[in-house]
């Protein structure tokens, strides 16, 4: 087994077959969409598919005990990275389920007594859609706006909390622009007001230090595949002291303290645990390496291209994210020109809705600039060569498309694009 999954194999595979020091393409720069499972994680999971295949809930034989041991070790590893107790970790199918369980679960438990929920306009769709669903059931939801840098205004949060507010849900790190919300301050406000604080930390766990005690977090959603773990598994941290009460979404055998029934997927739980353990050990060094790569990327782009705008705060941001608007060049058209690079765009053309990114719009980014945005996600297996290659190709493509852009031409001639009467279509 060793050798096949050695750490360096992924890096080695990136060297092109012709032996030149050119990265292997396509280059993956979409680490906020998902991450590859770390080979060390896969290795930890494998025995639980074959030899330790027991049902972790079987109490009567060693097969069950082995599987249970694997699950409980993983639970402790997940708890450790966020400073929680292992009894406070509920395994789920992923962050979408965790977010649904936290928000709907608390709201349903307190229905009739507390009918108000607070969240933020830039949350992930699974949070926003859970809230919309609660509205249909008669709950009231406040959607806090964000400032131009993507962060919430704490005074607005304070003002929004009411006696009947049951939960405040604010994401730790935004999936499009990578900005980090002031969690400790939010936690303090919620604790003082005796309101539960839930955070969707899918993009944060393993990227930035988190501590549920220091930050007064009552519930936290965790995703496996965003931190080099497997897809199909996640967790919800649910505080025990003071105890958070919530109603289950999935009923059955009463596993996970009755909050989430269903046989646990042992290999996936083990994978999530191992991913957390690796992240906890390596987070500091990895963040430093990624920040250097990110800065290299951003600096080189800015040196070579005018009119590139960063979306979201630069300081309060995870190191592996850049979200850039390349003015006068439409995002999907640009992605077609850099087909060797796997990135994602806030342009309308890449979505089914034909609306540009609601996150960028919430920051006050003008629609025409929102259409020109690219999200560049760097991660554990990104190299300096990857960055240099990506920059070179983005610069070439932007220059070519600008030379074909009527808007760029107008801007060069000094024509204000806003002065033109455009026919909306």
């Amino acid at each position: 087994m060793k050798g096949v999954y050695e750490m360096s194999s992924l890096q080695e595979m990136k060297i092109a077959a012709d032996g030149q020091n050119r990265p292997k393409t396509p280059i993956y720069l979409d680490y906020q969409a998902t991450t590859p499972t770390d080979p060390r994680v896969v290795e930890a999971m494998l025995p639980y598919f074959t030899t330790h295949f027991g049902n972790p809930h079987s109490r009567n034989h060693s097969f069950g005990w082995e599987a249970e041991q694997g699950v409980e070790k993983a639970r402790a590893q997940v708890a450790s990275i966020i400073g929680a107790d292992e009894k406070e970790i509920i395994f789920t199918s992923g962050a979408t389920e965790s977010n649904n369980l936290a928000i709907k679960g608390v709201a349903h438990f307190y229905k009739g007594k507390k009918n108000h929920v607070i969240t933020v306009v830039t949350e992930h769709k699974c949070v926003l859609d859970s809230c919309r669903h609660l509205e249909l059931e008669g709950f009231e939801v406040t959607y806090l706006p964000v400032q131009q840098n993507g962060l919430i205004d704490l005074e607005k949060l304070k003002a929004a909390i009411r006696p009947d507010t049951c939960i405040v849900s604010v994401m730790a790190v935004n999936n499009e622009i990578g900005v980090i919300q002031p969690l400790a301050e939010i936690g303090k406000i919620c604790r003082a007001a005796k309101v539960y604080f839930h955070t969707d930390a899918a993009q944060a766990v393993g990227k930035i230090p988190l501590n549920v005690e220091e930050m007064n977090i009552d519930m936290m959603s965790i995703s496996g595949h965003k931190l080099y773990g497997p897809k199909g598994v996640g967790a919800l941290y649910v505080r025990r002291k003071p105890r958070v009460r919530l109603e289950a979404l999935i009923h059955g055998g009463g596993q996970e303290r009755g909050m989430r029934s269903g046989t646990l997927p042992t290999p996936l739980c083990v994978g999530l645990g191992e991913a957390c353990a690796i992240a906890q050990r390596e987070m500091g060094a990895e963040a430093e390496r990624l920040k250097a790569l990110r800065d290299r990327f951003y600096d080189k782009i800015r040196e070579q291209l005018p009119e590139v705008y960063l979306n979201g705060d630069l300081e309060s941001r995870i190191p592996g994210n850049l979200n850039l608007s390349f003015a006068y060049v439409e995002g999907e058209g640009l992605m077609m020109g850099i087909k060797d690079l796997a990135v994602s765009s806030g342009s309308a053309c890449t979505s089914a809705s034909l609306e540009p990114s609601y996150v960028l719009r919430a920051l006050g980014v003008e629609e025409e600039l929102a259409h020109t945005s690219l999200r560049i996600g760097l991660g554990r297996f990104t190299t300096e060569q990857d960055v240099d290659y990506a920059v070179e190709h983005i610069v070439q493509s932007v220059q070519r498309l600008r030379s074909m852009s009527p808007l760029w031409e107008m801007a060069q001639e000094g024509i204000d694009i806003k002065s033109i009467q455009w026919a909306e279509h």
Partner: protein
Amino acid sequence: MAYSEKLIEHYENPRNVGTLDKGDTSVGTGLVGAPACGDVMKLQIKVGPDGRIEDAKFKTFGCGSAIASSSLATEWVKGKTLDEAEQIKNTMIAQHLSLPPVKIHCSVLAEDAIKAAIRDYREKHGNRPAEQAAE
């Protein structure tokens, strides 16, 4: 999204990118779309003394389908009379490039750009027939 070879070829090697002098009386300019919607096409035609379109140029802000649609449009209008060029329909462009359903609006925009350029040319010439206008 999977694009046809023809579309990709037009995106990678667009025909007739450029700008004609919009002050020239033999040039008609169409500017359609909106930056806020994510696509803007500028299509220009130059009408020869025989009333036929002797040159066409475009610049487009938009996705690959929008760029390919406008590139194809400039290729097709060349050599045609204004009346003939007006007969180019978005469905012909969409079919030629095998545009996926969500990209049909790009071909609509290309048709609009041709019509807008023709209208601009005609307005410059008091809406006389092209053969007389070109004299």
